[in-house]
């Protein structure tokens, strides 16, 4: 259920509306679910708030007597209409993913590390020697139209993604790991040779390479089923526009879609065939609500909960009597990156430049120690953000290492490091020169957000000025989302350092972001030592969790020592819930499903 991948597509949408509304003088705009890559900021609180994050729970505390049935009213906080592609295989929009939570066709359930367990509709086993994954489905599971789930329903998504007519991003290097996928995509084979039906409840997938990512439902393994009895005969090119995907998708989840107003709202009714038993609610209505009005709507009791509610609007709901605020860690971190080289696009390899302006690791470390991230988290984010110490968010129960010291605020140490490295103020103007005594100007690229984002940026610049570093903004101001990534990816010479954010997804492997051939390795840092560790983290030996953890830790220590990228913040996402809602949880590992949710009053409490 929690293998949802996040897509930055939505963030650019959210951002665009934000620009308009911000220009309209609307006091605050926030980002939503699916916005991995932009800065969330908000107004200043006057009191230095303590760590609110730890006081918020993940489960509703309502213990009242529940009413029979009832309809849950959900506000989907979004700046633009949802796209309405209700297929896990085809969707790309984060909002669509939010809407599919109620109908989910996920076949695996996951544990605290987002690894597949045997509790779900399907279970898998890996034969590391033969490089074959066997997937077996439970008997007695039915689609929402009463049709029994078949093993073909699990095989179909592979045939869609691999199909030559498929135009999404999921036909990728991971998918090509399946034996025969490339031949099928090229049209030289009618089926994917590596995918075989064994019997009515079992299939096998032959892979070229096995890696621990399989357990994270990655490396080519697909975690969702498609109703083959309905869509098998629809040509792949037409599927994304077909009513079976857009209007009346058949589901395996606790609810099924009854009615849709395109882009605006979805009405669900309970799925009587749900394999875990009939849901307690009669139905759910989800409506798109702009972030500017979400808080007032909650206060007025128009909704039972808000999904994708911006953490920066926390102050608007914190004192509401009818609302309980739930919080959980986001699968994301913000970071400060240093440009240390270039991408050789011909060879597809990162090439480090020993003469790069930021090449001295003591300079980088000093810049990390100089930032008062702790204070910004408290003052601007109500403690809903905390300083990150690692590239693995704390959600990953056994991979996150809480003992890493990270870069805590320590300006004294920063100055010491700079002095040691030879960055000293020679002309006595309070600004340090480089080792040769030439003026040192460091250019920082940041993404534009609202006015608070700008304030925080100024605060960072001040932090650096305090230790004697002259940091200025690339282009003189913060940069629009699309332009920012264009510049950062193109290794724009105007950028020495940059601040961004990554959603990690559910696979803790840092391979895609930091390996020597990763286009998203924006700092262009690649050493043999680092590459070796990364390869080890995803190697077959790493099926042994202890081995993997050990290599991850070694890699993180290396990254902390070399500091090509310094993690800045981990974030909490919040879900405000009306107090009439019972048995609802946003905990990643909860046993409570949407089928357990109940209401304790006829209407939301005002």
């Amino acid at each position: 259920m929690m293998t949802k991948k996040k897509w930055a597509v939505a963030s650019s949408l959210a951002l665009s509306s934000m620009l308009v509304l911000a220009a309209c003088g609307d006091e605050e705009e926030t980002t939503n679910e699916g916005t991995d890559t932009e800065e969330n900021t908000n107004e200043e609180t006057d009191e230095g708030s303590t760590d609110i994050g730890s006081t918020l729970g993940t489960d509703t505390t309502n213990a009242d007597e529940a009413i029979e049935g009832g309809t849950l009213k959900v506000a989907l906080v979004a700046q633009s209409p949802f796209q309405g592609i209700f297929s896990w295989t085809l969707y790309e929009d984060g909002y669509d993913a939010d809407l599919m939570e109620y109908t989910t066709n996920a076949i695996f359930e996951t544990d605290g590390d987002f690894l597949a367990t045997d509790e779900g509709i399907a279970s898998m086993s890996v034969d590391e020697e033969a490089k074959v994954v066997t997937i077996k489905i439970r008997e007695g599971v039915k689609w929402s139209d009463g049709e029994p789930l078949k093993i073909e329903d699990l095989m179909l998504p592979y045939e869609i993604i691999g199909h030559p007519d498929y135009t999404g991003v999921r036909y990728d290097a991971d998918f090509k790991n399946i034996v025969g996928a490339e031949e099928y995509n090229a049209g030289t084979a009618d089926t994917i040779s590596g995918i075989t039906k064994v019997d009515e409840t079992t299939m096998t997938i032959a892979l070229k390479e096995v890696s621990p990512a399989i357990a994270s439902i990655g490396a080519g393994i697909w975690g969702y089923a498609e109703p083959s009895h309905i869509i098998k005969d629809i040509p792949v090119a037409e599927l994304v526009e077909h009513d079976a995907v857009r209007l009346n998708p058949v589901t395996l989840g606790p609810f099924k879609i009854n009615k849709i107003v395109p882009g605006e709202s979805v009405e669900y009714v309970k799925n009587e065939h749900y394999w875990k038993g009939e849901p307690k609610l009669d139905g759910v209505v989800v409506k798109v609500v702009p972030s500017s009005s979400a808080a007032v709507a909650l206060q007025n009791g128009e909704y039972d909960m808000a999904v994708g509610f911006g953490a920066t609007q926390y102050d608007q709901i914190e004192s509401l009597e009818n609302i309980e605020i739930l919080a959980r860690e986001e699968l994301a971190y913000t970071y400060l990156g240093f440009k240390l080289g270039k991408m050789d696009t011909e060879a597809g390899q990162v090439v480090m430049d020993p003469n790069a302006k930021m090449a001295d690791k003591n300079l980088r470390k000093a810049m990390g120690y100089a930032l008062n991230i702790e204070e910004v988290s408290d003052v601007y984010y109500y403690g809903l953000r905390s300083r990150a110490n690692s590239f693995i968010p704390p959600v990953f129960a056994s991979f996150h290492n809480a003992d890493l010291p990270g870069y805590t605020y320590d300006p004294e140490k920063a100055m010491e490091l700079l002095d040691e490295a030879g960055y000293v103020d020679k002309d006595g103007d309070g600004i340090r020169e480089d080792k040769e005594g030439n003026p040192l100007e460091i250019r920082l690229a940041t993404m534009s957000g609202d006015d608070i984002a700008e304030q925080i940026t100024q605060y960072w610049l001040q932090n650096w000025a305090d230790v004697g570093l002259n940091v200025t903004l690339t282009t003189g101001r913060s940069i629009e989302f699309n332009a920012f990534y264009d510049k950062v990816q193109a290794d724009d010479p105007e950028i020495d350092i940059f601040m961004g954010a990554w959603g990690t997804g559910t696979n803790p492997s840092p391979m895609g972001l930091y390996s020597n051939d990763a286009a998203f390795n924006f700092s262009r840092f690649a050493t043999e030592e680092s590459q070796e560790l990364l390869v080890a983290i995803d190697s077959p030996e790493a099926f042994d969790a202890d081995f993997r953890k050990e290599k991850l830790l070694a890699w993180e220590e290396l990254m902390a020592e070399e500091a090509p990228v310094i993690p800045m913040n981990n974030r909490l996402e919040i879900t405000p819930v009306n107090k009439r809602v019972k048995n609802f949880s946003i905990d990643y590992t909860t046993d409570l499903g949407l089928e357990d949710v109940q209401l304790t009053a006829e209407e939301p409490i005002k």
Partner: protein
Amino acid sequence: MWKTILRRFLVMIPQLFVLSLLIFVMAQFMPGDPFTGSITPDTDPARIEELREKAGLNDPWYEQYGRWIGNALQGDFGKSYTYKMEVSKLIGERALNTFWLSFISVILLYIIAIPLGVLAGRYSNSALDKSIILYSFVTYAIPTFVLALIFLYFFGYKLNWFPTGGSVDVQYDPGTFGYAWSKMYHMLLPAITYAILGTTSIIQFLRSEIIDAKAQDYVRTARSKGIPMRKVYTRHIFRNSLLPIAAFLGFTITGLLGGSIFIETIFSFPGMGQLFISSIGSRDYSVITALVMLFGFLTLLGSLLSDIIMSIVDPRIRIE
């Protein structure tokens, strides 16, 4: 006249052509492309590059333009990168919402503006006239988004009189009375906002026309024949003064399209204006170009419509 209209339509072709060229080139200048937004650690950069190549985004702009214009001439505006559906179908859905919103707005606009304009003109320089002028100055000066936000907050949230977003409630079935009413109800607040903001020019026009007409010979003649003042107003002055207002209709429609960008965004009303803004953010080129072309066409059509109406209501005017 038919000949003239035909000629005007023919002139539109080069105008639209230049517009399409401009928008196409300018869209290319925007940083990023439809796939920039899909970068996450989970996406394979090689696949994104492959999709770019497949979509032809790596070709020089004139090749892309040639391809696009060739298809557009056959009525095919391509597929939306974001919504994964035919642009014409996507815009069609939204255009219908915008059309109805504009329709109701125009009706409300005239319901508010005409009586006010007539009263101001008839009782010129009275306290009533002055307060109407004050009203029209205030509404002229106030930016669209400010009034929209105030109304949304006050009537939508504080008083709960109107729905605060969307175009229809999900529980009704299309075709039923409840559905139609729900649609109407959702459009009311944005339409009122728009109508109030658009009244100024009509009030001012009508007022000055009526003040002018009051001094005309035919009014004096009518009065000297003993026709009561009330009748002179309804029969003579009003009719004549209304001419330019009728002609304004075409431009009003044009103005509505510009306003729709703000109104629809603030009221989260899924129409063309909102679609336009979101497609710019996501660099959905095919939708952006198609919408600009549509806006351009409608603007030209609006001004033509104004000329035609003018020549119908006032036989002295000939469009040549």
